[in-house]
């Protein structure tokens, strides 16, 4: 005879096991990076320029470069992505053009990041003559994270209950007033989630910045947005594969700083999101 409780327990066990397996790699990455990287962290490592062919000194220029690049990418992608998401969720009708736009966004999300790099090189570095610069890199990263921001923002906007829109319109608010005063404030937490995801991706990608901005070795801070810059992911690649005899703790220390930086930037967005959720009086 079949025992439904036994099969149920077996099913629960495998479901739980699969869930647990997700935690393991995350935990291990964090433990290994902290264990091997933390000893490298000191004030000099964070504030000094690289010395002795990047085998000593600090990684300050790479930290600054990554902060610039991520900030630039968000400044570019957030407004454009948000406005596009509002159009797609609130205004667009189901016609050929809009289906084409939605298809384009999905495909943009599927393009490999190295192709973005090549695209950025052709368009921003060469055609617009921005050169290898923070501007070119930010623009390339911005385009790369656009689909993430558009998709999550659209989901956030569409999850605002239709009844809120109806009431607002029925009280004589225009469509734009409804969006501005009712839909957007209720969608901000979701939009910020999209921003967090985009931010993490922009900070971590190496390929898109490879041809557009990243300097192999630049022991000073960039002077303007038309200047090249070092960036943490590329620096990590360089000291891990291109420069012989770099101490392990410097490599893991760099990875640790990259992780921490993304975490700190996410934390800021999470705090803003929390504030908005609290203000929303559910």
């Amino acid at each position, binding site marked *: 005879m079949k025992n439904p409780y036994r099969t149920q327990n077996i099913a629960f066990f495998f479901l739980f096991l699969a869930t647990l397996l997700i935690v393991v790699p995350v935990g291990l990455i964090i433990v290994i990076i902290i264990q091997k990287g933390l000893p490298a962290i000191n004030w000099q490592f964070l504030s000094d320029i690289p010395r002795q062919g990047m085998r000593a000194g600090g990684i300050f220029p790479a930290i600054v470069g990554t902060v610039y690049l991520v900030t630039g990418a968000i400044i570019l992608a957030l407004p454009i992505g948000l406005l596009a998401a509002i159009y797609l969720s609130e205004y667009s*009708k189901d016609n050929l053009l809009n289906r084409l736009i939605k298809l384009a966004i999905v495909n943009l999300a599927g393009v490999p990041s190295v192709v973005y790099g090549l695209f950025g090189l052709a368009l921003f570095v060469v055609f617009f003559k921005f050169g290898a610069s923070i501007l070119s890199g930010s623009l390339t990263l911005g385009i790369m994270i656009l689909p993430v921001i558009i998709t999550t923002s659209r989901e956030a906007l569409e999850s605002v209950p239709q*009844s*809120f829109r109806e009431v*607002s*319109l029925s*009280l*004589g608010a225009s469509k734009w007033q409804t969006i501005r005063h009712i839909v957007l404030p*209720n969608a901000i937490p979701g939009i910020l989630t999209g921003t967090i995801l985009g931010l993490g991706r922009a900070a971590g990608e190496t390929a898109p910045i490879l041809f557009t901005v990243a300097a192999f070795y630049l022991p000073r801070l960039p002077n303007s947005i038309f200047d090249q810059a070092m960036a943490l992911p590329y620096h990590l690649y360089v000291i891990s594969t291109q420069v012989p005899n770099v101490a392990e703790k410097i490599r893991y220390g760099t990875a640790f700083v990259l992780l921490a930086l993304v975490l700190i930037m996410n934390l800021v967005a999470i705090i803003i999101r929390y504030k908005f959720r609290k203000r929303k*009086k559910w």
Partner: protein
Amino acid sequence: MAKIITKNLNLWYGTFQALKNVNSTIEANRITAIIGPSGCGKSTLLRVFNRMNDLIEVLRTDGEVLIDDTNILDSHTDLVVLRKKVGMVFQRPNPFPLSIYENIVFGEKIHADGITRDELDEIVEKSLRDVLLWDELKDRLNEPALRLSLEQKQRLCIARLIAVKPDVLLMDEPCSTLDPQATARVEELMRELKSRYTIIIVTHNMQQAARVSDNTGFMLLGELIEFGKTHEIFTAPRDKRTEDYITGRYG
């Protein structure tokens, strides 16, 4: 005095005809009830009066709907002006996820530039007094509106609407989520409000229509079968279908 007149009103959702040749005269400062079984078009008719059906893309109408002698189906109609004048209370109480205060001033903030805090305070007090909530809520104005009871929420929605100073109140089954006591109190409120507003209520509940309304229309399959004084509709209906419905033979 006639406030709203519909003349040969027809409405289609795509190829489905939801309203068929509706002719009616809705009097000012009266409560008019629209009754009928589910899907008969009563909510659709209600949503013609503030053009909320416009949110549906495949909608088509013909005929005339005159409100104060202006045909609101005209394509030049300013929907913002129309909806300020013809407000709506929905089936499910739907306050915004804001404070009680912010809910009531929402319309005013949108419509009036540079309104002062004192003026807003005054509107909040007056609107809440009108719906008999002021004494209960005057010390809780900054609390989330979603924390209120269902009845309080629905009253708040009426207050939010009154704050915009409409002439006509459209009520789409406003008591269907409320218990009998709360329903009775909201009906009492409707009677108090009718001296200042023209009220049209769509309801499933025939007893409610009989209790609160002055005039009643009975709809079936998109047609307005019978329209007249409530006591006549309920005591001496002229049409066999009306009689069958109110005696509970279907519905």
